[in-house]
């Protein structure tokens, strides 16, 4: 019996290890339309918040509506009924991938149907992450999301694990000089410590442990 158990144990452990989802892959999952950020955000230099409009207003960064995509890709979409939608510039000179994927977009618009994008960045329900706080404090999108403007398929660049969040909050993760300056200026935590120190309170404990702390690591800030 012991040998059976040993064998079963090794097999199960191997299977378990194999099914563990790695947090970072070379290539992201397939999306219903092969949307290239490298073309839109990279070559065409569209700002991130042109599409992800609520990143600086809401906890949720927002996924662009079908109407937004069609605003460029289907001329006259604001005034023509969706049944008459036609792809802009469907010339033969364009490569077939572009045409094929963009036609899918036009079909979604014609049917007035939402595009079911596959979610890349997700946190478990017990952790809350407000986008607008981080965007408004001066962080670049690429700091957490990686070089999105070079991605054809979006993948999860950062681990999004709690340790990773805490590292940045504690000031132990390096940021660019511009970001660091902006965070120091805008962070409510930094301001609070400075106010406490200037009004004669003893902040040595906070400053000794993590002297470059940028944001609160109180449990309730993210878990509420």
């Amino acid at each position, binding site marked *: 019996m012991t040998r059976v158990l040993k064998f079963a144990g090794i097999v199960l452990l191997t299977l378990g290890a194999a*099914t563990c989802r790695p947090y970072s892959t070379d290539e992201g999952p397939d999306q219903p339309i092969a949307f290239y950020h490298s073309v839109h955000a990279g070559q065409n230099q569209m700002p991130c918040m042109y599409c992800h409009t609520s990143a600086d207003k809401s906890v949720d960064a927002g996924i662009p509506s079908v109407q937004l995509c069609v605003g460029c890709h289907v001329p006259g979409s604001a005034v023509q009924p969706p049944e008459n939608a036609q792809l802009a510039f469907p010339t033969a000179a364009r490569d077939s991938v572009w045409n094929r994927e963009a036609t899918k977009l036009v079909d979604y618009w014609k049917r007035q149907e939402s595009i079911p994008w596959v979610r890349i960045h997700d946190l478990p329900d017990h952790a809350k992450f407000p986008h607008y706080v981080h965007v408004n404090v001066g962080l670049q999108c690429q700091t957490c999301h990686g070089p999105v403007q070079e991605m054809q398929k979006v993948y999860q660049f950062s681990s999004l694990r709690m340790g990773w969040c805490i590292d940045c909050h504690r000031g132990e993760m390096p940021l660019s000089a511009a970001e660091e300056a902006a965070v120091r200026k805008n962070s409510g935590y930094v301001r609070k410590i400075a106010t406490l120190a200037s009004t004669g309170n003893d902040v040595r404990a906070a400053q000794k442990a993590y002297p470059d702390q940028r944001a609160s690591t109180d449990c309730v800030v993210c878990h509420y």
Partner: protein
Amino acid sequence: MSDGMKRRDFLKVLGVSGAGVATAGCSTGEVEKLIPYVVPSEDIVPGVPTWYASTCRECPAGCGIMVETHSGRVTKVEGNADNPISRGNLCARGQSAPQGLYHPDRHRGPFTVEEGLSPRNVSWSVAEGILAERIRRAPAGSVVFLTGNYGGTMDRLVNTFAGSIGARRVVYDPFGATPRDVDFAGADFLISFGADFLETWGSPVDYAWQFSQMHAYRGGRRGKFVWVGPHRPLTGLNADQWIAPKPGTEAAIALAMSGGMDVATAAQQTGVEAAVIEQLAREFRAGRGVALGPGYATSGANAGALQAAVNRLNGRGAPAPAAGGMRDVLQLVEQMRAGQVQVLLVDGADPARLPVQQANTSEDSPRVAVTRRSGSRLPFGTTASCLVT
């Protein structure tokens, strides 16, 4: 090993079980989708509420409200602080308005109810077609439009529509005939002849605020509130003095206070002592008194007399005949009994709640094919007996 497991075996089993549990727990998980809008609303930011200023229509007072919405759905309603009627307050009916908005039993479209069959959903074009055909078929003068008491453009629209289809309009609004603009915040004496102004009479949110002003201590004094009526509801329980005349004789008190009736006669009619009536009259004159009423008595036979007496006490002339009382709708019921009504359109009124009508309905339906159109969102008593809704 009959005397138990060896330690080594135990540890091995423990290890395998642990690996099994870890395997079960460490799964790839489901793929989550992000579903965007097709055409987004410009007002909506996810997680951030959008506020609208609006008007509560749960009663004729029309308090100004602030409506909080999340992603296009109403979540909370509060009074609008800048509104002169509500002053940021809101009564229980207004607070419960979102419940009615999303009531699970609300009508989501037209449906027909026919004798012996369960209600059938129809499209708007079909419903309008049925209604138009019934109106066209009905003989002249047999179409009645029963509505609530409306004001402004809605009133004009309803009248225009009724006129264009040759229908007679009947107004039924038990709440409607109450004044919503009484000003008594600065009075030192308030007397109410059965008008429950802290509950449902007139403009309760405004009146409750005004009451808090006149009944609070100002400069060492506070106003006096007298309740006249056979019993004390919530409003009456807040009174400083309760006068209980013989039910139906309240008008005599008001008349005696304003000099329209001899005090002794009033005392004899009502059963209230003459000295008490005289003191009321004195305090009313001295305290810039305001009289409110009639409240419950609106449905009674002496409503007109009490209304006139209260107006006289307030120094106003005879009141205009109030629309929406019981008389018009009772007359309509008689006409329906006599078979003079072929098509009855109902909007904003619930006559099925009348006990008279209730008894009438079951007799009428088999004999007279009455088409009723109800504009209500929720299944009231009237819709239950409808042929077309």
